[in-house]
């Protein structure tokens, strides 16, 4: 691709102090987002996907002691070296964020109209009256019926789906170039989720925004994203266009994730695939490959040395020593052979 990316994250590292010492929640993450594309960031709880998104807008408390390293270039400027005033001009304006739980992200004592108008007044210097008109227009855009009355409603008067629409309206009110959506539909029912996803895609097209969608739901990723980043324990383990990822996943973790979800078409009598064990704590990051303990293919090399994220094909990157040897079909036999060896190695 010759185009310049809208967002270019380079070697991002985010560290927090905790009672048991510092943890590195995001460890050397690099990726790009181009205008008009939707990048999915997937992984299980604790993999660092939300921290990555918070790092982009530096949404950490001043006294939290969070340390950010690397570069986050947006429209040619590094967000990590900006002053607080500068980044405040970008938050909610050029880059917007939508969170999972619309109830706790809205202020319960302000009307939804006031909350949406706030960023329009602040970033675009609009008068109160003009901001209100714009707000009504935004609410109409996100499909809220009779928006002229609804602007005076408080969050508790709306249903979950409607509140999420308000959050989207708020996120889009200044026509951002980049929208970061952190599990935007996880708290919603499937029929409402379908409405909200359709809405987000439609608005993305209209505004030619870039979008980062953070989710643990691979079904949502398959339907909405054009490119996917899979994270595990603070690192990207696989990056690929969505079709490639679902058809030819190369990292054992991605393969495991894809196989362990029941689908509406799968064979019901078959047992579900299981990834053995659980995600290690950030305090005890294994040396070598971080997935080795749970990986059916791991050998001595995996336990000793950490693999890099390397090219595995067109636009396809994988962090695995054995990516060339692994294929979905032959995987299980290999797994059986290596299991015993793995136990001696990890024990």
């Amino acid at each position, binding site marked *: 691709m010759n185009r310049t990316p809208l967002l270019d994250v380079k070697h991002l590292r985010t560290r927090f102090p905790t009672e048991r010492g510092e943890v590195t929640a995001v460890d050397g993450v690099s990726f790009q987002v181009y205008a008009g594309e939707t990048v999915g960031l997937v992984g299980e709880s604790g993999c660092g996907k939300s921290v990555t998104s918070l790092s982009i807008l530096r949404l950490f408390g001043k006294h939290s002691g969070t340390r950010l390293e690397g570069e986050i270039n947006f429209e040619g400027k590094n967000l990590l070296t900006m002053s607080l005033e500068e980044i405040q001009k970008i938050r909610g304006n050029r880059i917007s964020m939508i969170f999972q739980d619309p109830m706790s992200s809205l202020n319960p004592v302000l009307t939804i109209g006031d909350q949406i108008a706030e960023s329009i007044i602040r970033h675009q210097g609009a008068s109160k009256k003009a901001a209100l008109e714009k707000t009504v227009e935004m609410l109409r855009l996100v499909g809220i019926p009779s928006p002229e009355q609804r602007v005076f409603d408080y969050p508790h008067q709306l249903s979950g789906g409607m509140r999420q629409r308000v959050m989207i309206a708020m996120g889009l009110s200044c026509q951002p170039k980049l929208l970061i959506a952190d599990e935007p539909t996880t708290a919603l029912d499937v029929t409402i989720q379908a409405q909200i996803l359709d809405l987000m895609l439609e608005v993305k097209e209209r505004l030619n925004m870039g979008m980062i969608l953070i989710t643990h739901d691979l079904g949502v990723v398959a339907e909405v994203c054009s490119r996917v980043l899979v994270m595990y324990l603070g690192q990207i383990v696989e990056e690929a266009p969505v079709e490639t990822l679902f058809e030819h996943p190369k990292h054992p973790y991605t393969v495991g994730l894809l196989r362990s*979800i*029941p689908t509406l078409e799968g064979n019901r009598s078959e047992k579900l695939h299981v990834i053995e064990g659980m995600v290690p704590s950030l305090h005890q990051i294994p040396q070598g490959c971080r997935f080795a303990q749970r990986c059916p293919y791991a050998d001595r090399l995996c336990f000793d040395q950490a693999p890099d994220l390397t090219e595995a094909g067109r636009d396809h990157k994988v962090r695995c020593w054995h990516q060339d040897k692994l294929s979905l079909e032959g995987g299980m036999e290999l797994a059986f052979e290596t299991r015993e060896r793995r136990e001696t190695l990890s024990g």
Partner: protein
Amino acid sequence: MLLKLENAVKRFPVKGGCFRTKSEVKAVSNLSLSIAEGETYGLVGESGCGKSTTGRMALRLIEPTSGKVYYKGEDITAYSDEQLRLVRKEMQIVFQDPYSSLNPRLQIGKAIQEAMNIFRIGEAAERKQQVYELLHKVGLQREHYDRYPHEFSGGQRQRIVLARALAVSPRFIVCDEPVSALDVSIQSQIINLLEQLQDELQLTYLFIAHDLSVVRHISDRVGVMYLGHLVEEAPTDELFTHPRHPYTRALLSAVPHPNPKRKRERIVLTGDVPSPIQLPSGCVFHPRCPAAVPACKEAVPALKERLAGHRVACHLAD
């Protein structure tokens, strides 16, 4: 039939407004279903459709406003507290959130043993040994006996909760969203465990969930609820291949598929679920139904058997 709900109704009174106007949330309306021994009955629906209330009524954790609950042919709604206490030994429940279902100050071994103490199962001295066996059965180790809940991950806690439910050797377990708080890789571990335990111990499950793929995987029969009504019920394969109720169809089409090549043919429902305080007239689904005809506003459709084992509540299903 091991468990049967007959015309079960639950209404919760709501006191509201400054004049204490009384209204009612009609959580479950006239619901009848039965679950055979050894079967897994999946109950699906969106939040607020009354599926959890139904699960709780089946155990009489919530008293039905009217209607009957039969367990092994006996009407347990007529049971005294003592009779109920004894039958509860055979009926257990596992909740969604394993964090809040365990006492943080109680070692997990003791938590599991508690139910055995209450029902005086086995000799007191043998109980610890039985707890070890239960821990092993759910995939934990005996060293875990004297640890506290905070030392475990979500998936492990759900295993502990299961071990505790199994401590009294139940025959019927209501699983209320048992995997929805878990990560996908852990979710499959727990689903496999539930299936394995069912085979070993001949358990009967009422499996309540909003995730249709999970319900399809684990259930033998599935019931679909909408606004307190059971709108469709069928054997799993039949329901997922030939859904007859427009709501079931919309629900199935809304599930995102983990296959980017699949063309979406979504039936997007407009609007929100109406308030259960003021149910729509006639068929409760008619305001959102893409196929509604005037008759739908008038009469409530009965849940009628259209094919063997396939019941549908829709005027247009004929």
